């Protein structure tokens, strides 16, 4: 069975991977979803980082040698579903992990600050920035550690429908 599992995960050309099993890129701590290639040869996909509170979606494009980040979206969990609370559109920006982290921290800060204001509560911006950075940092975690394996069961249903995990 174990040998069959590895053959299923990395099948030969012509054979299918397990249906609905999302791909996790440990190098960038994200799920790779919605991948497609245009007729011009541009390959694009979404990189998704999910926690139980929020999700970050990166719109990534590959062309020849270059990897671009086209947009970043921030979703917040309202208790029922993930709702879009921030979007950053980037034009012809080379993929830069530090830039993406900085932009998502800014979006998280802007969102949480706006929520404080609407609740008519005083906000300490310095503390809020640190908390925003800590929240974003929490999404950059390994999925192959033992302690996060159980989190997969909670998280995979939250991925976009085309990659919903089907329990084998």
């Amino acid at each position: 069975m174990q040998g069959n599992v590895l053959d299923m995960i990395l099948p030969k050309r012509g054979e299918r991977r397990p249906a609905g099993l999302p791909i996790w890129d440990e190098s960038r701590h994200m799920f790779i979803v919605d991948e497609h290639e245009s007729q011009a040869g541009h390959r694009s996909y979404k990189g998704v980082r999910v926690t139980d509170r929020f999700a970050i979606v990166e719109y990534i494009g590959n062309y020849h040698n270059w990897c671009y980040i086209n947009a970043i979206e921030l979703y917040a969990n309202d208790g029922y579903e993930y709702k879009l609370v921030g979007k950053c559109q980037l034009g012809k920006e080379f993929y830069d992990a530090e830039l993406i982290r900085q932009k998502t921290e800014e979006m998280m800060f802007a969102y949480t600050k706006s929520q404080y204001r609407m609740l008519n509560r005083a906000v300490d911006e310095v503390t809020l920035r640190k908390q925003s950075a800590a929240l974003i940092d929490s999404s950059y975690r390994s999925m192959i550690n033992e302690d996060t394996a159980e989190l997969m069961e909670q998280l995979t249903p939250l991925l976009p429908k085309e990659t919903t995990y089907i329990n084998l």
Partner: protein
Amino acid sequence: MSGSSVSYNEKHNIYLSNGYTSAAGNTYFQGIRLSDRLIVKYDFGQGYAYLFLNGIRLYCYDGYDTKLISSRGYYSQCWNESFARHECLDMLKDYLLSQTRMLRQSVPQSQIEDFAAAMVKSVMATQRPRLR
């Protein structure tokens, strides 16, 4: 690399794409090695004196489609065959491990390592696979 032409370098067992030369005189091109299960794509940058490795991407097959399974970028990394092989191995092991976790299958680490090593070896093997 759809729509672009490639040449095959038999000595290094690698398909090379057309290059793009920047205004600064650096040439960027891609290299591909493939087997019946794994595709390794390298992003090269040829500078004045050195050949740089700018990135490695691994793809697996899903039917006749290819799926990106791992991607790493590098900065000022000179091309080194041994380094590239080690990186591919590392990326592939992480992919296999994460997939087994999601499938809730317990596979010994040693088996994953042996399988990954065999897959990387078959990609590097000096035989010319057929491209369709």
